[in-house]
């Protein structure tokens, strides 16, 4: 076990994680023998990485931490791992390791051999592999092999940080698992309330820093409770997201206090005044370009989606939508000139009141179905009110739309675009297509089944 002071520091830095810290200090203890493999698992933002980092740092074990997120391939991970271990061992006071002797690591067995050579004659060594279950391009043997490294190298302990362990992940029984459960409501609020953000940005003489501190500590937890119950409970349950949402709302929430309209302890009145803040869900919507804040405008009008495309590209896209969402056998009804009458009748027909036997999902909610190029062109000819020129510009536009991924190829990746075997799919939804069709004066519902 670790000394008590260290345990206290850890418990202070990582509240609500006493059990996990005790497990860790038993499994990775300086005195007791450690298991060759340990798995730490839990969802995002549950403190796995930072806790193990802090633990190893405080306990001054020789260790190496490799983050899988930074590694592009399985090979990259191995190279990184070896480099990190070599650097860590070389930094030990009494080590005489020559870093240049460990230059290459092509595969798992090379890693095993190199590590064996490296760690020979040293004490306990911990290798932490962070997020290893999300490793890109990982060979299938990666997990089981890494889990058995401890059997070959007696002083090595491998710690895996994974989000969800599958039962047969390591192909090895008896590996200790430490679970990091997601923080519950009271825990999350407790953790976040430890460092409250400021209410006032600059203080005057009458209002001292201590008073401010006190008010902050009073108001912030109440605000957190309100935020959790209204928004974060459903949509931002992990600690990081919860903190982000709370921070984003906070500025707006305390604005009336800053203006002097409310006192710092008028929480319930302020709550009533700012209830709109917790009702709209703008903060939960992520966007690269931050939305402009507009206090008055509570109900936002949906933005009009328009694409700046050439005239025929718009028609091609509409025709592609029709081809994807209309069944092929009804093409004659919708697109043949002689069927004009039938189409008219469609609107009023049907017997009301009787529900169909088996309910079908509306077609526009399903995945777009594939169509051939000729069908697209035929629909294009039927939809465009005037003659469509037959030159290659139409094909150029199809390939441009494909490169913008507004149309996508359904067949194999390398297939020739203009091959008549190649199937296509439309890549945009109803809203976009409908507004596009409006802009060129095409009524999509005239042609769309259902």
């Amino acid at each position, binding site marked *: 076990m670790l000394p008590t002071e260290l345990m206290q520091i850890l418990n202070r830095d990582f509240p609500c994680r006493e059990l996990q810290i005790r497990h860790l200090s038993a499994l990775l203890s300086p005195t007791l023998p450690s298991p060759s493999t340990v798995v730490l698992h839990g969802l995002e933002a549950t403190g796995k990485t930072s806790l193990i980092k802090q633990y190893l740092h405080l306990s001054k074990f020789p260790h190496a931490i490799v983050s899988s997120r930074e590694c592009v391939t399985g090979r990259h991970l191995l190279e990184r791992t070896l480099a990190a271990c070599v650097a860590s061992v070389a930094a030990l006071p009494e080590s005489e390791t020559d870093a240049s002797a460990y230059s*290459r690591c092509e595969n798992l067995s090379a890693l095993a051999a190199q590590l064996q050579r490296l760690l020979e004659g040293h004490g306990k060594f911990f290798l932490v592999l962070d997020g290893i279950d999300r490793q890109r391009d990982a060979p299938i043997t990666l997990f089981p092999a890494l889990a058995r490294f401890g059997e070959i190298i007696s002083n090595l302990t491998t710690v895996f940080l994974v989000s969800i362990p599958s039962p047969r992940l390591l192909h090895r029984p008896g590996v200790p698992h430490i679970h990091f459960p997601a923080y519950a409501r009271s825990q999350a609020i407790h953790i976040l309330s430890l460092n409250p953000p400021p209410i006032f940005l600059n203080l005057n003489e009458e209002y001292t820093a201590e008073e401010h501190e006190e008010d902050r500590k009073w108001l912030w937890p109440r605000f957190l409770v309100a935020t959790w119950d209204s928004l974060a409970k459903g949509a931002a349950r992990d600690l990081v997201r919860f903190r982000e949402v709370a921070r984003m709302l906070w500025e707006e929430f305390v604005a009336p206090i800053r203006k002097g309209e409310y006192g710092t302890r008028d929480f319930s009145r302020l709550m009533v005044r700012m209830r709109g803040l917790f009702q709209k869900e703008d903060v939960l919507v992520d966007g690269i370009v931050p939305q402009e804040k507009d206090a008055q405008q509570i109900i936002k009008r949906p933005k009009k989606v328009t694409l700046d495309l050439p005239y025929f590209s718009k028609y091609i896209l509409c025709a592609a939508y029709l081809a994807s969402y209309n069944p092929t056998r009804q093409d004659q009804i919708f697109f043949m000139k002689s069927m004009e009458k039938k189409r008219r009748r469609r609107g009023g027909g049907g017997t009301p009141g009787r529900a169909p036997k088996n309910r079908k999902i509306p077609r526009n909610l399903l995945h777009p179905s594939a169509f051939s190029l000729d069908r697209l062109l035929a629909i294009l000819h039927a939809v465009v009110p005037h003659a469509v020129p037959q030159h290659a510009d139409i094909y150029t536009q199809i390939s441009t739309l494909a490169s913008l991924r507004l149309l996508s190829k359904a067949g194999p990746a390398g297939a020739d675009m203009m091959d008549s075997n190649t199937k296509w799919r439309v890549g945009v939804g109803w809203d976009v297509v409908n507004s596009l069709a409006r802009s060129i004066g095409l009524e999509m519902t005239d042609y769309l089944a259902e």
Partner: protein
Amino acid sequence: MEYEKCYVLEIPNERPKKKRKIDQKSSLSSWEQRKQLYSELWRRQEQRINDVLDKSNRETLDNILDFIDQTRSEGTSPTIPTGIISGGPDLSSRRRLFEQLAASIQKTKDCNAFVALSSRDALNLKGLLRTLIQRATSRSEALDDNEDEFVPHRKGPRLLNYDLRTLQEWAAEHRVAKVVVAFEDSEAFDSALLAEAIDVLSTFPVKFVLLFGVATSVEHFQDRLPRATIRKLEGRQFDAVKANDMLERVFEVTIDDPDQRLWLGPGLCRMMIDRQNDHFQSVQAFVDAVQYAYMSHFYANPLSLFLGEGPTDKTIPKDHLEGVRSLASFRKYAEDTLEEGKTDAVRSWLDSDQQLLQSIQHALQSGTDKMRGIIGALKLVRHLRAVFQQQPDITFSSLYIKATAGSLNQSPIIRELLLLVKKVASNKLPAILGYLSSANQVQIAKVADQMLKRLDELIAGNEHAAEPLRSEHDLRHETLRTTVVAQKVELSKQKSSLTKQESEYSEIVRDLHRILSEYFDAMLSDPKAVFTHEIFMYDIKSPHRDSSMPRPRLVIERALSTPHDYLNCRCCQVGRVHEDESVLMPSNPPTSILYQLYLESGSLINVSDLYSAFNAIIGKGDNGDDEKRVMVLFQRALAELKYMGFMKTSRKKMDHVTKLAWKGL
């Protein structure tokens, strides 16, 4: 043959003979001069176009540079600063923007690195990172796909060449503050790949600034990325100049320059502009088309020689002058002169080259003046429309097309404009007069100056009034009077009486109206009525259509369905046997016969039926040898159709083929 290691191929000196449609002697005599003339004129034109393009991008560029500059002060934030540059689907203009950006980033004094990535560079994450590192550290080695290549010169464990630590070390070594990574065509990247790349970039301590060129819209772009990725990005949106605006600016520069000598004609312009709106929206394609027009004018039209500096009888070969004499516009010009009774002048043009040359020079000068006059008038029209805030916006290009076709003066655009001028109030008039007095036309400028003075005096006398002065044609001066005559209500309009100032003001407006209508009448006549318009105006559409708008499918279908059009053989001549065009003749090529049968059948075709139909047309009875011959022809025709992608073997039914292509699409 096989014991020689290599062979030296000696190319014979004389060039292979090409088919030239034009007469060798006359066209080649001035060929070098014309080529020179072309390269000079086009160089200037291209320079102007590039200037306009660069200038148009300037504002967006400055915004982006500011944004990149500002990102440093923010310190360490968990998000990557991101700029989204939205513009039309035109990749070439975006690429130009990024090139300019790269140049200006290198010019600034802070150490920033700029890397532009396009979707072709990045098929997978490894390739993307490798390209990124190589371009940033600008190592000159060519990209190669060797996975195990290591970065040399480094102590300790070596790094893989797609390891971003290389970049990190390089940045630390060269004190690079920021690495700007631009994704030229963000939509074309696989969205999973993009998300992974952003994830990897966000883990490294190097300060990255990402720029995404987006052709559709920011929302559409965001929809394709996972939310976790979006959370890592934060930034601004920049609007690049829209393709249509850019096109207008470029268009204006191709027709309006003090040094302009060649103008594009209305038919060609309309074709080029329509093609832009209907199909492309690419400024580069437009510029290429303009260049092609210059090339075909100077390369193919010997008379373009007259556009050079001061053509004299020494520089102009004789046959060129003969060519001028056979121009349609010369004939018309001569006839008109004859009608005026100046037979001597016409005689001298026909007899004396010197005289003809003089009159050509004169005509070219007047043609140039004419075109400048038209453009001046168009600018006036544009200005007036802006003053009256007329809707809808009419682009300068469409005005130009109408004007050069000679149809603008009678069009409702000018008529409405003149009506509005009649009704103009005194608060808008100075803007019009001010524009006129600064115009190039000396006479009009003088008159406008005088009118401006008169107006100033009038307004000075009218200072106390809140309302501006209105002319007599203004609606406010009309009142409706109702009279009841024999139980019917009659409405009659009546002018209310004008004050003295108002009648004086009306005088000014009437003058202005008269001057403007005279000016438009003079300027906006058809330039094709001018002698030598074939020289200073290029208006031939067919080279453009032939060279840049191919119709592959139509051509193949036509060749298969009416082979006579191409073969021009006697045996298949239409009307020889039957009147009907689509009749099948055994003398047609077998593939085309099979194609006709193919067109007549449904989407699933029984090959055996197809064969019997084929045999009925081409076969000569029941003899065994003939059957063999027909079978061979049939097999080959079938294979050819299959090769061209018209059919494939069906999976649903044995011995059937599926129809893949329909005619006329």
